[in-house]
């Protein structure tokens, strides 16, 4: 595999500095997504707090309990990464190891392809359909294809370590995207970019707390158990509320899944029965199935007083916000998410230095600014 790589390396070097010039001259700043918003958006590098001695000893409502989940990149000694060829991004080959299929990821892949085209790169997509075993095979297949760089979306945070280690050993630079790998995994990564899941869920908590007047009780619907979004989107809200609105009590947390609005509706109906007027706010971890189920349950019970807020920006969510049924959603744009790793890759091929990890600035979408986010990306 390494033979092939040096071969392609020398070839592009033969093309001379010409390719680098052309690559650097590419105008990517003006690229737009389907809504006319910039395809490549501003990113930020978050501050990391001091790591507590033993996070597990802290209560679950303390954000530092989740230190390893929220800041897996902290205190990691990066292994030595391949040196940039610094010969321009045009003509480079990328492989996108996708974690699975989902409307969000359809938009993501579209943007990755669009971005690669802008930079004159070739991108091949392999989707694991949420199956680690298939992703393991695809990691090997990707290595076998000897691309210039791999964009990697892990199926699972922890299992990603073995995959990343393999790709690292094969000498292929990897940019993580969309889902953060665990602590161990980060050492193998050239860079990571993606949505700031914890931050957006905290932002959601802040906005909802303000709307609720920093009082009242809430329930949380989690994402699929086990995934990184499961922790970030539930405990981001819970820890933040414990900090800024200590009067707000978490009544219950349930995981009815992300496949069936009917299941979600059932859980929310049961909550309304059980808690009655005590229930003031519902947080959902997703805005298609879960928002629909929650809204329908509340409407059926005639409880228009309950505030519902969810994470991400599906068309369903934006419509609900317009109709006033959903208090707010957060902006996690899949297209920008998908374009970002390509930008990082291009920069790296062009010899520019890139950050170890960057995140997309989250934003709250509410009735006042919803028009800015339309048409929806998925």
């Amino acid at each position, binding site marked *: 595999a390494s033979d092939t790589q040096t071969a392609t390396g020398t070839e592009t070097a033969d093309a001379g500095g010409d390719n680098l010039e052309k690559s650097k001259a590419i105008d990517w700043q003006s690229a737009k997504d389907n809504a006319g918003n910039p395809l490549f958006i501003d990113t930020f590098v978050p501050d990391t707090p001091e790591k507590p001695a033993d996070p597990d000893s802290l209560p679950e409502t303390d954000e530092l309990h989740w230190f390893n989940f929220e800041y897996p990149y902290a205190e990691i000694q990066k292994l030595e990464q391949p040196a940039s060829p610094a010969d321009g991004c045009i003509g480079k080959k990328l492989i996108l190891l996708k974690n699975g299929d989902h409307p969000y990821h359809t938009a993501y892949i579209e943007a990755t392809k669009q971005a690669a085209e802008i930079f004159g790169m070739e991108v091949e997509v392999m989707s694991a359909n949420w199956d680690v075993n298939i992703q393991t095979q695809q990691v090997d297949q990707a290595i076998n294809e000897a691309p210039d760089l791999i964009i990697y979306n892990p199926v699972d945070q922890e299992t990603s370590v*073995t995959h990343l280690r393999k790709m690292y050993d094969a000498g292929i630079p990897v940019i993580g995207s969309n889902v953060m790998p665990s602590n161990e995994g980060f050492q193998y990564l050239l860079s990571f970019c993606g949505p700031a899941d914890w931050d957006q869920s905290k932002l959601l908590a802040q906005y909802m707390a303000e709307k609720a007047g920093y009082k009242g009780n809430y329930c949380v619907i989690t994402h699929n158990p086990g995934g990184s979004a499961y922790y970030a989107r539930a405990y981001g809200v819970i820890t933040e509320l414990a900090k800024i609105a200590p009067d707000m009590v978490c009544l219950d947390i349930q995981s009815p899944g992300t496949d069936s609005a009917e299941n979600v509706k059932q859980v929310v109906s049961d909550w309304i029965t059980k808690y009655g007027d005590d229930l003031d706010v519902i947080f959902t971890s997703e805005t298609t199935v879960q928002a629909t189920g929650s809204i329908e349950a509340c409407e059926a019970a005639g409880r228009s007083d309950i505030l519902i807020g969810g994470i991400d920006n599906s068309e369903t969510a934006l419509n609900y916000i317009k109709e006033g049924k959903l208090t707010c959603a957060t902006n996690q744009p899949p297209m920008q998410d998908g374009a970002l790793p390509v930008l990082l890759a291009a920069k790296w091929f062009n010899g520019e230095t890139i950050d170890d990890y960057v995140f997309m600035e989250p934003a709250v979408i509410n009735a006042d600014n919803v028009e800015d986010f339309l048409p929806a990306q998925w």
Partner: protein
Amino acid sequence: MDKDRKKWMAFCSANRVYLIFAAVFVLMSLFAPRFFNTYNIGTLLGTAMLNGIVVIGFTIVLICGHLDLSTVAIINVAGNLAIYMVQKTGSFGAGILAAVVAGIVIGIVNGLLVTRAKINSFIATLGMSTLLQGLVSYSNNAATRSITDFTMTDFLDKKLIPIVPNRALIAIIIVLLVHFFMSRTTMGKNFYLVGGNVESAWYAGIRPEHYLIGAFSLNGAFAALGGALYACYLASAMADIGAMGVSPLNMLIAASVLGGASLAGGRGSILHSFFGVLTLTALYNGLTCFKLGYEMQIFVNGIVLMIVVLMEAVSLYRKNKLAGSKSDLFKQAQN
């Protein structure tokens, strides 16, 4: 002429899975970019490890005329238990052993539910699956358990013999051993008899309940072994590997049916089921080489499965239609 054709047909149906595998393999080698090289073939074989080991027990249960829907849950229990034990003791041996023991215990419970409580295996194991999956998720709040010790990963990725990674080698050795056991020992043959006709097995002095419990515990053992080895290989175990996407269960059923096992019992072969797994893995691998998405893979998987069962059923249908016919009366009719 006719006899030759009949012989040829019989040969084809007996070796169906090898022919399908060969067809997929040759087509992919010819047309799929980067499919046919030692590295990718090693990848393909390695990927077959998990399902290849698990399909052993799954097939034994099918041979006995039952179905174990809790197999995937057992894989998850085993993976989590193995990683937990490695975390606690630092020894992979202890982890794998504990997982296999747990798998056997679960298998015995399944077997007892089927033989003693006389619950249809489809239903008993469906309930068992819900129960076990709940337990696994509860035990670690659905988080993936992981370790940072990669000795097992490296060992399983090494190649003692060229092309074949150790994880594939282990699977192949186990498959061959169990295949030998099932096809060449009297005890193995008895499983077929129990699946073929429970009553006649009982008349023959075989205790069908013992064999059924045995089959379910073997399924527990191999599902657990596969799950544990796979978890050790990935240095982590998810709470539910089948939570999203297509459950490995579907893959197992498809592979063993391709291999000639029937849900009615009495038929099936460990080696054929393993080749069923290899065929599907090669199919997925090759379609990925073609840059076709996962949707195409399950579509093709479904079509292959459909064609195979349909062909089998149609030939049986034809055969039944002609059963008892007298060939000389045909000759007369044609004249």
